[in-house]
């Protein structure tokens, strides 16, 4: 009898999940697979499209004319963004989960989550007003006499890009740590206090190791999302600043389809591998499960 029930449940689960599979596979996976295959085809000057002549030319072109540099630069900026975000997120998540009562914790989680659902474009654009020559920071610095002329490197620079990206992606670093805090058994903290550990001993010896999966997950989320972003770089970056996404757009504009597909394939495969490894190592699936489970 139980087998029959289990079978029915499994079938019901399958049919319930079916529409989402159709979306994920049909709109996500199949197009990516096609892009990967077509990255090995060649450009057809007659039709301005591609033709099934197999070639690795676009992968060779990936390494030429500074494209590899753009890949590395994007990864470097993303890593810097993820590092700064994580350094800010650990104390912030600690305040939410360890140092606030339930009421203030709820408020803080809401404050940290709300911006995620508002326009990233507008929030990046707003940094122009803050960091510009006539912006609030330069006016302040001149006002108190620290500098006499506006600081130029504040805007249209890597500095501005990293600031904009940290502000945009910080929630992705904070939320996984808050979730990791929720899994800490309170008895462990109590035991450390009974044994006479002060705050910093408890924090570095007990809390930090226990929230480490959340810290790493947050770092990875910010890194991966920052790799794919273009808005902050286009609005806040210096002249000629590029990123993987901008490069793909540019290559598509000059109709070099196989090359655009090759860049997309390499980046997508690398990111998906990172996500699978992270899922295995950090057991990300646990974040989706009930606390008791």
């Amino acid at each position, binding site marked *: 009898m139980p087998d029959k029930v289990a079978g029915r449940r499994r079938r019901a*689960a399958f049919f319930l999940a079916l529409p989402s599979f159709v979306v994920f596979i049909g709109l996500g996976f199949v197009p990516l697979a096609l892009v990967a295959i077509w990255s090995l085809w060649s450009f057809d000057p007659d039709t301005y499209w591609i033709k099934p002549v197999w070639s690795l030319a676009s992968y060779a072109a990936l390494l030429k004319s500074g494209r590899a540099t753009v890949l590395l630069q994007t990864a470097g900026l993303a890593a810097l963004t993820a590092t700064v975000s994580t350094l800010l997120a650990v104390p912030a998540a600690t*305040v939410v989960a360890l140092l606030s009562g339930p009421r203030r914790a709820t408020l803080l989680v809401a404050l*940290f989550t709300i911006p995620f659902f508002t326009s990233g474009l507008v929030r990046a654009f707003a940094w122009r007003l803050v960091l510009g020559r006539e912006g609030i920071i330069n006016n302040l610095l001149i006002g108190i006499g620290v500098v006499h002329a506006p600081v130029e490197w504040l805007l249209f620079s890597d500095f501005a890009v990293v600031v904009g990206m940290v502000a945009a992606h910080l929630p992705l670093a904070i939320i996984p740590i808050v979730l990791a805090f929720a899994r800490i058994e309170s008895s462990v903290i109590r035991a450390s206090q009974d044994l006479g550990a002060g*705050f*910093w001993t408890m924090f570095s010896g007990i809390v930090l190791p226990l929230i480490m999966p959340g810290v790493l997950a947050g770092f990875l989320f910010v890194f991966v999302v920052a790799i794919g972003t273009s808005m902050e770089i286009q609005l806040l970056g210096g002249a000629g600043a590029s990123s993987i996404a901008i490069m793909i757009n540019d290559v598509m504009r000059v109709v070099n389809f196989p090359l655009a597909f090759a860049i997309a394939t390499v980046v997508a495969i690398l990111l998906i591998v990172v996500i699978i490894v992270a899922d295995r190592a950090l057991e990300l699936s646990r974040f989706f499960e009930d606390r008791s489970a």
Partner: protein
Amino acid sequence: MTLYSIVGNRTKGGRPLFSIITVLCLMIMYAPALYLLLASLNPDEQLGLVAPTRYSLTWYVTLLDDHRLFRALEESTIVALATAALATPIGLAAALGYRATTRMRSIFVVVILSTMLVPGTIEGLGLSTILRLLRVSPSWVTVTLGHLLWTLPFAIIVSLIGLSAVKPSTIAAARDLGAGPMRAFVDVTLPLIRGNLVSSFVFAFLLSLNEYARAYYLVGRQNTVPLYMFGAMNSGASPTIYAFSGAVLVVSFAAVALIFVGAARRQSLSRVIARLRARST
């Protein structure tokens, strides 16, 4: 027993340091947006803050004459409504399926995370290529397909959170009283997760409304709002773009804040009910 009540005030200087960093986090997330909002109330051509007595909605009034903006807004609204209307039920069904079986959960999580984290440019590029192959001409429908892929993971997660709060014993009680699985779902589960379904719809709507990278590849002749705004921001921005940015911020902040207030209300209500029940037994 919460962690907070155990640690209490014995934080040896940890609290001030961590609190300062938290305030810094909130500042970099909110201050620029707030500054932009105040600057958009400046009636002069020149940017910057003016005294509150000189605040004016001049640039917001000029917005009303921008017909291209309204056409973009119309297109974005259609796309966002269609996206949310599709993502919410599909997300709920997927969440129910996820909870009904323990098989393949890890694959499901990887698929959800990959979809969320693969760059929008790459998803948009891939989708536009396959649509070109199928000879589907770009329109609001193609943007909606891209946005469905983008918002579905969020819709699933919001539904999963809602379902995890439904006590299995409540459903079991309904079943014991003779309700079939469908009846138990409609009469018990659905009312309990109604708030999450509203959140799921609003989040999908807002994520779609603000999405740029996928729409870049999938729009037809009519631009969506972010595409229109991006153009305006990079072409010697007239002050109207600040007004429009301000309007976008106010509307989306208000919508999400309402959702959170609603969720907090329900939570405190259920806490009150739990307390009353505990007292009566």
